[in-house]
């Protein structure tokens, strides 16, 4: 399978949308994943009637072809989708396009508490605290 075909499949799985890049331009190294799921790619090629036919198809037709392969072998197709999805949604350009920070969670961590939370929580908990025992002896 050619790199062009691989990119076309990746972009059918995860096309761009607005500032979100398509998979082929998200900086992924998907070669190992695609090699591991080679039979699914072969099935897509066969369903299209050859690599050239898949490349010539418009995005809607390509999506239909992937859908058909997904119906004929759901487990294998799902495995490919989830493997590519994990790479794609972990890539810095995609994470940032979704409005999040592309950095390791540590050592910085994150802040979560607003200054007014504690007082409001205490007020609401006061109502719960005032209830009678709700556990059974």
């Amino acid at each position, binding site marked *: 399978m050619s790199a062009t075909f691989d990119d076309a499949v990746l972009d*059918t799985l995860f096309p761009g949308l607005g500032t979100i890049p398509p998979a082929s331009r998200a900086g992924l190294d998907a070669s190992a994943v695609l090699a591991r799921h080679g039979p699914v790619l072969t099935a897509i090629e066969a369903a299209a009637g050859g690599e050239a036919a898949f490349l010539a198809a418009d995005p809607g037709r390509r999506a239909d072809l*992937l859908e058909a392969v997904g119906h004929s072998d759901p487990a294998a197709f799902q495995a490919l989708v989830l493997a590519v999805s994990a790479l794609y949604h972990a890539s810095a350009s995609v994470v940032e396009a979704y409005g999040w920070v592309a950095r390791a*969670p540590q050592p910085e961590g994150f802040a979560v508490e607003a200054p007014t939370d504690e007082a409001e929580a205490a007020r609401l908990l006061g109502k719960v605290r005032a209830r009678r025992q709700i556990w059974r002896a």
Partner: protein
Amino acid sequence: MSVKRLAPVDVVVVGAGLGAAAFTRHLAEAAPSWSIVVLERGGWVDRAALPALRPDFQRDVLGPYATSPNVRLAAGGIAPSADYAVDDSESDFKPLMWSGVGGSTINWAAHFPRFHPSDFRTRTLDGVGDDWPFSYADLEPFYDLNDARFGIAGLAGDPAYPPKPERPMPPIALGKLGMTAARGFDRLGWHWWPVDSAINSRVHHGRPACNHCGPCQQGCVTGAKASTDMTHWPEAIARGVEMRTGAVVLQVEIAAGRVTGVTYRTAEGDVFQPAGTVVVAGNGVGTARLLLASGVTAPALGRNLMYHGAGYVRGFFAEDLDGPVGPTGCSIYSHEFYETDRSRGFVRGVHLQATRENPLAVQAARLARPWGEEAHAALLREFRRSMAILVVNEDLPESENHVALTGETAADGLPGVKVVYRLSDHSRRALDFGLDRAEDMLRAAGAVETVRVPLAPFTGWHLLGTARMGTDPATSVTDGSGRVHGVSGLLVADGSLFTTSAAVNPGSTIGAVATKVADDLARAAA
């Protein structure tokens, strides 16, 4: 192959997870003159190697640091967890665990609730399951001891429980998500309370406060989240306990109705460790696997596997709810519907728990259609704006749900293991009720849309009941002190012992029960 024979010891503990740690930590103090050896198949976690220190950490969440050992093995495995494959093809829930020092406390959420007093008397109160051989009051001192050893963040005064000791740390910060959930429960007039967490909200016992990094279930880099490799094992080892890692126990050796020791495999060869007492604590799958492989013939062994029924409702909000930050499972919970109300059409109850959002890749993997333009649209709608209410129900013991050997030898030298589990009609009714209430709450909290997930297969952390306690050897495997019926010197000290499952996470109760088992053993020998 020749087997090396070692000098005898008083006690061998199989496993180094939560139950083993609580047992050993307590026994080392209660019986300081005893020689205790711990055999752990995995190794110690290197915190500097954990995923949260890497920008691409999300890739590991669904691969080598997945919560499922089967997924980790498929991704090539991860050295500190000496995983074994579990055939879960006939199980509605997939077993999750960590097989190294600390056990599943390495990748748990550290949500740390106690059972309710009624959970120990389900037969008497509601005519289902069985009563435990002891009560909440009997276990309470061991809850207190084990809580102190873990270090708990929480808040006293919860009317859903008998009074508990003041927690040494305030609850983990609720954040926008927790406050939104609190307002939802409040608008309905329902109980809610910040969870008890085995996570530091302040510096405590030499460990730092949580900095809300997010991926608790891939191991805690800073050590703010308690795991027994930090909380229990160092103290036990300081008291003279010997920990041997990379030691896969193949057989508990039994002769003339009493244990003589264990045979285990190391990289250097097989070893026989003679011992007067053998304590098995390998979780509800691993313990049953080893005891079945060792020829223990109790009819209930491996039976009555309980996971907890689990499903969830996801609510999508118009405003930002923090995103994938904070301890996933440690926010707030409701026990408004925990105790039996027969008008609901089932007995026992449900636990509702607000859970925080996951990293983008995990959120994406949860989409109904996880690819194509639709996936982008769905993910843009929910990322940073979603909250899941987890519904957990009390899974009743049923003999047909079980752990069995496959008849083939696995890569680790033990027989292969299989879990067979089907969600009962009772659990389905309870979960459906809970999912309805979760939708009510999310709407009250302001969710603009909800999506119901009736069953959550990858929640199989709670591996319970396969060596259950009881008084009748026909229906139980051990007595109330964890001693296996009919085999002198053989004990169990983990969640396998549970007579029933309650409807909350079992970690706190596993620790308390294992501590009690150790206390009973030391007292019996005194």
